[in-house]
C-alpha cells in the first residue's frame, strides 16, 4: 500500500481505506476523522479529534470489501468548519441535536444492540430539534463470521472504547453551504397489503392487516418472508423508511429497527438486481460528491456487493443507518450544498 501523502490530503479530503500508520499520522496532524474498522485496528489509534465504530465491511471506490485489521476506513472532515468530539450515554441522547452546530450536522456512531441503539431508534424522531439540526450516522457491528463478537464505538478524544455510548462528531459547515441528508432506498412497497402496528417495537407480537389484528409471526410466515431479505417499508409522508426482519424464531419476530404506530407499512417487493438498482438510483440523483455515506450490511450480503462498485460511494457497511432516525437496508449520504 502506498504511504499517505499528507500534503495531498489537505487539498482533497480522504474517504478511503488507509493503513494504521497513515491513520495515526493523520490523527497526529490534527485531522478531524470518522473511522471504522476491526477492534484490533481501532485499539491502536492514539487520542485525537476522531470517533470510530467497529465493522469489517465497506463500500470503496473499487467495490465492496471485507478488511482485516491492517487497515481502517477513514473519512476526513478537514477544511469544512469546527469539528468536535462528544460522547453521550443513553440518558442524554436528545442532547445530540441540542449540541449540533447551527449550520452543520451531527455524525453519530452507536453500538448494535446497545441501550443507546434501542433508545435512539425509538425516540429520535421526537427530539425537539431533530429536523432543525440533523443527525446522520451508523450502527457499529462486527464480523458475522465471529459468532460471539460485539460491536463497539470509540471516543477518539480520549482513545477509549465503549460498548454502550454514542460517539458524535459535531461538524460545522461553511456559511455558504448547508447539509443535505439523503437516502437511497432500492425497496418499494409490494402493494399487497397494508400493515399497521399498535406500538413502537423492535419485536411486535401483533399487527393489523386491513384492520384485522393478527399474530405478526404468523403473518410473516404466511407471506414467506422469514429469510429477512425483504424489509417492511414504512410510508413516512412519501419517504420510504425500512424496518428489516432480523430473526423469526418460535413465536417471535425480531426487527433491526422499530416499527411505529400510525405508519402504513408493507413488505417490499422483490429486487432482482441490487447493483443495477443502486446504479439506477444514483443516476437519478444529482451527483455532487457526498462528504460521507454508509450502506447496510443486509444490502451488502443479499446484494452480494463484495467486489462490486455502486455509484462511486464509499463508506462503512453497517448494522443500521441513521438519517434523522434509524433506518434499515438503506444507503445514507450527506452532501454539502
Amino acid at each position, binding site marked *: 500500500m502506498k504511504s499517505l501523502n499528507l500534503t495531498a490530503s489537505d487539498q482533497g479530503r480522504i474517504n478511503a481505506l488507509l493503513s494504521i500508520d497513515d491513520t495515526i499520522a493523520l490523527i497526529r496532524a490534527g485531522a478531524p476523522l470518522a473511522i471504522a474498522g476491526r477492534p484490533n485496528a481501532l485499539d491502536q489509534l492514539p487520542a485525537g479529534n476522531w470517533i470510530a465504530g467497529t465493522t469489517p465491511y465497506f463500500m470503496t471506490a473499487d467495490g465492496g470489501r471485507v478488511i482485516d485489521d491492517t487497515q481502517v476506513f477513514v473519512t476526513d472532515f478537514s477544511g469544512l468548519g469546527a469539528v468536535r468530539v462528544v460522547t453521550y450515554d443513553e440518558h442524554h441522547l436528545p442532547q445530540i441535536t441540542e449540541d449540533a452546530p447551527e449550520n452543520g450536522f451531527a455524525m453519530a456512531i452507536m453500538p448494535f444492540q446497545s441501550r443507546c441503539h434501542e433508545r435512539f431508534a425509538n425516540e429520535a424522531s421526537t427530539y425537539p430539534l431533530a*429536523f432543525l439540526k*440533523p443527525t446522520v450516522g451508523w450502527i457499529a457491528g462486527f464480523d458475522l463470521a465471529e459468532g460471539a463478537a460485539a460491536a463497539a464505538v470509540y471516543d477518539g478524544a480520549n482513545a477509549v472504547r465503549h460498548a454502550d455510548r454514542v460517539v458524535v462528531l459535531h461538524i460545522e459547515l461553511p456559511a455558504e453551504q448547508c447539509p443535505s441528508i439523503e*437516502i437511497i432506498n432500492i425497496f418499494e412497497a409490494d402493494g399487497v397489503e397494508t400493515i399497521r402496528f399498535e406500538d413502537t417495537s423492535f419485536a411486535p407480537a401483533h399487527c393489523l392487516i386491513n384492520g384485522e389484528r393478527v399474530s405478526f409471526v404468523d403473518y410473516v410466515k404466511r407471506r414467506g418472508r422469514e429469510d429477512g431479505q425483504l424489509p417492511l417499508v414504512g410510508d413516512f*409522508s*412519501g*419517504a420510504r423508511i425500512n424496518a428489516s426482519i432480523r430473526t423469526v424464531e418460535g413465536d417471535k419476530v425480531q426487527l433491526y429497527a422499530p416499527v411505529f*404506530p400510525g405508519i402504513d407499512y408493507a413488505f417490499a417487493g422483490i429486487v432482482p438486481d441490487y447493483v443495477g438498482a443502486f446504479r439506477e438510483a444514483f443516476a437519478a440523483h444529482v451527483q455532487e460528491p457526498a462528504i460521507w455515506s454508509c450502506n447496510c450490511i443486509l444490502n451488502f450480503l443479499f446484494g452480494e456487493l463484495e467486489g462490486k462498485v455502486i455509484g462511486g460511494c464509499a463508506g462503512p457497511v453497517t448494522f443500521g443507518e441513521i438519517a*434523522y432516525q434509524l433506518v434499515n437496508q438503506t444507503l445514507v449520504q450527506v452532501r454539502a450544498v
Partner: protein
Amino acid sequence: MALPPKTAPCWQKLASGGMKKLRTSNLGAQMLSQRMELSKLPPAQKADEIYSFFVKWERGLANEIAQLNSL
C-alpha cells in the same frame, strides 16, 4: 418566491393537515410531515415548528415554498 411571514395563514394550514399535501422529496420535510400528523401538539405549536423548519432550510425548499399559497 420569498418565504411568507410567520403570520401568514399558510403555516396554520400546513399544521392542520396541509403538510401531507405538500409535494416534496426533501427527506427532512417528509419526516417532519409525518411527525406533525402523529403529534398531539396544538396547531399553533405545530405551525411554529413548521415555520422554523422552512426558515432554517429555505435555500433548499424553493419547490415547497412555491406551493405554500396553493395548499
